[in-house]
């Protein structure tokens, strides 16, 4: 095999510019294809989730930043939240910044109101008024049956009741948020305020993250007016569907547009590499014939071609993967996962030249007039 590696390196050395040019040609489309694909997947997931909850006609609120200095959480505001989220279940809200003392590194999501119904999370074990605790699919620090201490003013021990299936997530205006690595506490706005009494930060979060479900114009007007009077927040309602269409659908087509372009570039580069390899074979036929007559086997010749292609393809793929892993903060040891697609890609590239090699009477090239 080392001999074949040496021959493959010799093939590269004979036309190094061609090798480098094809390596660069591979790097650019692979990078942009991967980047576009990641963004397409993100956009598709977000739009799919928004479509799933589209029956709820969710409206979220954007607070006017200019009024921030006047914000407060009054008793009236709490009553409005309890009435809207807990009693009428006409909306849901989320608190995302709570930390548990025993698990400071665990991401905590507190879902209030109709959060469970809208995002179709399991709620069959909720019997008491106590908060229900679920864990995401990838949470290792806790298991079903583990206990966590919850609350600041009042504390209570809560038992993890079940594990969510992989891919569970919820939609916020900023994007789709995965619950796979989170601890989810499902409770009511009233209980939340009881556990974290007078905690201004969480109160503001509950208000600003409140989303109303299929609100009528009157309901929106009433909510916005009362919130303005009770909290000083000037909230402007925005349709989640229209927002998703504006931000993610536009983005989806934009990246799909690039994906199509770089996909086509990739197809042409693959055609170019295969053509170049076939030309390489044609120019080495006499050499192959001498090797075969000197005792080499067919698989020796094949492995020389495969090694050549492996060297050509592996550098761009590994470089792009390394860059993308750094960009998306994926642990570098996972680079090993790139090996199977790399091998498949090499097999794909090598298949046509190898079939051609097998179907050629190589020894006859020694009898050629050339």
């Amino acid at each position, binding site marked *: 095999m080392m001999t074949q590696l040496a021959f493959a390196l010799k093939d590269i050395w004979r036309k190094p510019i061609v090798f480098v040019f094809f390596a660069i040609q591979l790097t650019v489309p692979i990078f942009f294809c991967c980047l576009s694909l990641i963004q397409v997947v993100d956009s598709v997931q977000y739009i799919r989730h928004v479509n799933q909850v589209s029956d709820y006609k969710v409206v979220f609120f954007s607070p*006017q930043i200019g009024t921030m200095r006047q914000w407060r959480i009054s008793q009236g505001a709490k009553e409005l939240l309890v009435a809207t989220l807990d009693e009428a279940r006409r909306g849901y809200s989320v608190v995302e910044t709570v930390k548990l003392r025993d698990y400071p590194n665990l991401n905590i999501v507190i879902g209030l109101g109709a959060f469970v119904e809208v995002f179709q999370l399991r709620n069959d074990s909720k019997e008491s008024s106590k908060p229900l605790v679920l864990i995401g699919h990838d949470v290792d620090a806790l298991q079903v049956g583990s206990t966590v201490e919850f609350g600041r003013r009042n504390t209570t021990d809560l038992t993890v009741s079940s594990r969510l299936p992989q891919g569970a997530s919820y939609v916020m205006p900023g994007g789709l948020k995965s619950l796979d690595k989170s601890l989810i506490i499902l409770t009511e706005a009233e209980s939340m305020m009881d556990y974290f009494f007078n905690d201004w930060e969480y109160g503001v979060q509950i208000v600003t993250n409140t989303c109303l479900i299929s609100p009528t114009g009157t309901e*929106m007007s009433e909510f916005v007016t009362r919130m303005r009077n009770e909290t000083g927040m000037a909230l402007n309602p925005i349709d989640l569907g229209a927002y998703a269409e*504006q931000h993610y659908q536009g983005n989806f087509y934009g990246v799909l547009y690039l994906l199509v372009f*770089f996909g086509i*570039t990739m197809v042409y580069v693959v055609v170019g590499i295969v053509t170049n390899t076939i030309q390489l074979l044609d120019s080495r036929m006499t050499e192959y014939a001498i090797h075969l007559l000197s005792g080499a086997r067919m698989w020796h010749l094949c492995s020389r071609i495969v090694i050549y292609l492996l060297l050509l393809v592996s550098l761009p793929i590994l470089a792009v993967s390394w860059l993308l892993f750094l960009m998306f903060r994926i642990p570098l040891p996972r680079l090993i996962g790139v090996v199977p697609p790399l091998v498949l890609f090499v097999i794909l590239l090598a298949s046509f030249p190898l079939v051609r090699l097998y179907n050629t009477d190589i020894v006859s090239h020694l009898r050629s007039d050339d």
Partner: protein
Amino acid sequence: MKNKHSGIIALMNVFFACAMAVFVSYIVIQLGQALTVPFGLPEETVVVRVLKSGPGSGDIESISNEMIDLLKNSDTTLVYLDNDYGIGVYDPTGYYASDPLVLGDYFAAGDFGQRIASVLVKLDSPMHRMLTHGSTIVNGAIVSVKGVYGKGHALYTRGQSYVYSFSSTTSLQGTYYFCNNSAAALEILALLNKNGYTCSVIPSKQSVGSALRDVYFVSITAGLIFIYFNCFLAYYVLLSRYETFFSIHLRFGATKMTLLARLVAAALPAVSIGSLLGVTVFTSIFRSFFDGLTSSLVWIPITIATGIASSTLLIVIAFFTQRFWGAKVGQL
């Protein structure tokens, strides 16, 4: 030319035309956005981005009143894009008065001088849905609705939900579009500077160079060069199969030019069909994407023409660069 080879050329040109369509439409979209002044404003529009950068003496209301006083003495139309979801306008001359509204009327000249909250709301926005008895709620306050505007209005944007008279603004940070470089505009900038705001004038239109100086344009251009190269390589290999054919014809009196003419004539239908098919498929997939970005369809014929011309050129280059020309010409 063999049918099989015509099919290969047509298929290659479907992809080639799609790639060309991305390249050409990208340029058209970028240039269209860069060379158009927003909100249908004239070319001499001055665009200023304003940020609060330090403490100032006046409050927002008094500063905006001073700004209105300065604007009153000029014929400057102002469009103000705030950092929330509204557009403020100062337009006593009725620059936008003739733009069609879905319902109601545009602001009267008197509305721009008073701090009376009245708005135009975007059709089907939550502000429109909250409309009852001629009023809606904006920033938590009840305001009267003068009219409802839709997609056809010059002030329509995807991100903003309502248009209000600048005299009732509650914020001064954002982007200002003054329709001309009047003394009033300069005085307003001085006033904002005095009150702790940083004003940076940005060009209302970009230059062609700066519009195309982005990483995507560079990478798409690089991608197109790669496509050209590999397409040439594929044509080269395809034409190398015709070595014997060309040799026989040359031996019996054909010239290189007559062979080339025959080759181009044989390849052109496949190239044209492939290009047309590619652009049609591409346009039908991305129709809704283009609707929001450009109304111009000029890129479609440009793409088809460029695709056919460049593909034919590659065939010609591949023909002339064949190795079998030279010593072996005319030999069997």
